[in-house]
């Protein structure tokens, strides 16, 4: 009889084990988003030169985002059609474009704030919810999709008010390619122009 309680505890604990692993992954992903978000906000709110800000931004994005993975996703079916040379040039440019776009989205706002919401596992990933507040703009619900939450967490998508950044980017590229004879070089040229215009 004395052993019954520890035994029951053991049963309960082992039954809960899978949940606790998932919960742990969610906690880690949440902590990862908090750290990354804090770093981003610190850079944005720090009054400094745009060039220096961009360098810092690039460092954070390199460390936190699976840029190559997102880039491949955004090219969709054209990734397989591209030559390895085109793939390489595309990914390099995609990296630049991503930094430019994120800087454009956040860079102009002194006083960005974000509050952490709950996080939940979804398939192999973890979705971390936050609310981002930018001055002059209504608060936006932003979900961060984190891959490999336990081992090597990386951001693979950002979903703002239900709209996925990578899905939107993918349809933008797909449409551009459809209207330019499916020519990947045309896309690369357009991306190049985009980067040179904004930096």
């Amino acid at each position: 009889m004395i052993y019954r309680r520890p035994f029951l505890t053991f049963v309960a604990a082992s039954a809960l084990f899978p949940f606790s692993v998932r919960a742990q992954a969610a906690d880690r992903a949440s902590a990862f988003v908090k750290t990354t978000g804090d770093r981003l906000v610190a850079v944005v709110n720090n009054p400094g030169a745009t060039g220096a800000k961009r360098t810092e931004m690039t460092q954070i994005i390199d460390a936190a985002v699976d840029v190559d993975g997102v880039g491949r996703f955004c090219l969709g079916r054209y990734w397989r059609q591209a030559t390895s040379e085109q793939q390489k040039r595309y990914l390099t440019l995609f990296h630049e474009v991503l930094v430019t776009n994120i800087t454009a989205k956040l860079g102009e706002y002194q006083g960005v704030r974000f509050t952490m919401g709950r996080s939940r596992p979804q398939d192999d990933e973890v979705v971390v919810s936050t609310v981002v507040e930018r001055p002059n703009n209504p608060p936006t619900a932003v979900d961060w999709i984190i891959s490999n939450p336990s081992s090597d967490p990386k951001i693979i998508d950002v979903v703002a008010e239900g709209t996925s950044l990578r899905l939107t980017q993918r349809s933008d590229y797909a449409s551009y390619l459809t209207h330019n004879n499916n020519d990947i070089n045309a896309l690369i040229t357009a991306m190049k122009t985009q980067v040179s215009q904004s930096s």
Partner: protein
Amino acid sequence: MRSLSRSRPSFYGTTWLLACLALVVTSLTGCATKPPASDPDALADYEQTNDPLEPTNRVFYAVNNGIDTVILRPAALAYRAVVPSPMREGVHNMLTNMGTPVQLANDMMEGKPRRAGDTVMRFAINTTVGVLGIFDVAKKWGYPDHDADFGMTLAMWGVPEGPFLFLPVLGPTDPRDAAGFGVDIVMDPFTWVGGSHDTGLTVFKWTRFSLNAIDARERVLDSVDQIKKTALDPYATFRSLYRQHRHAQIEKLRNDDPATVPVWFPQPANASAK
């Protein structure tokens, strides 16, 4: 109190306008060419995009863009420059509060009693404590706002969205949401009060209409500017964003079934709160 009069509801004008536009659309209709079956990837893309009227839609996108550049965007910029942020928030809240009848009707038709209850509580609290809806007190008291329109109601009833449409003035939409927009106007009590002889009400209605447009535009000023700056094909980007946003709204609506547990009853464990 003013008596209700049903003479010449102002939405006739809108309907007439829409009918004319529909005529223009059908006569202008150019169709996107469907890729051949030999190119399954391209065909899959075409079907996923579901935008058979793309050439016509792009024309209206250009027209709307022109109108926006000349009228709506400058108006929204001026509104932002002149009216301070807390006051704009108050105006937005007031406009939202005036949309209560349409929201409530849709909540009920969607079969979401909890949402309908939230809407009633929000109206009761914000109209009184929130001073005619200027302050969103209800949100702080645990009754957050939610989206409801007849397009969403139709989605709940199983009506498919149909192909993508870009309509003049209305912007990105689809047949289901465009129909929903019309039905929402019909359901709005403000459509039916007053007549052409009633100057006060006419002014009020037009002010509300314009303020709604400017408020909506002001809230997306920065986002739209950024999209136009960063997208290679803004039309395709808006198309994707519109669809994703609608799908997310409808998905949220579908899954919004909180358990109703009286406060005096033992609360369920956290498992259900997941």
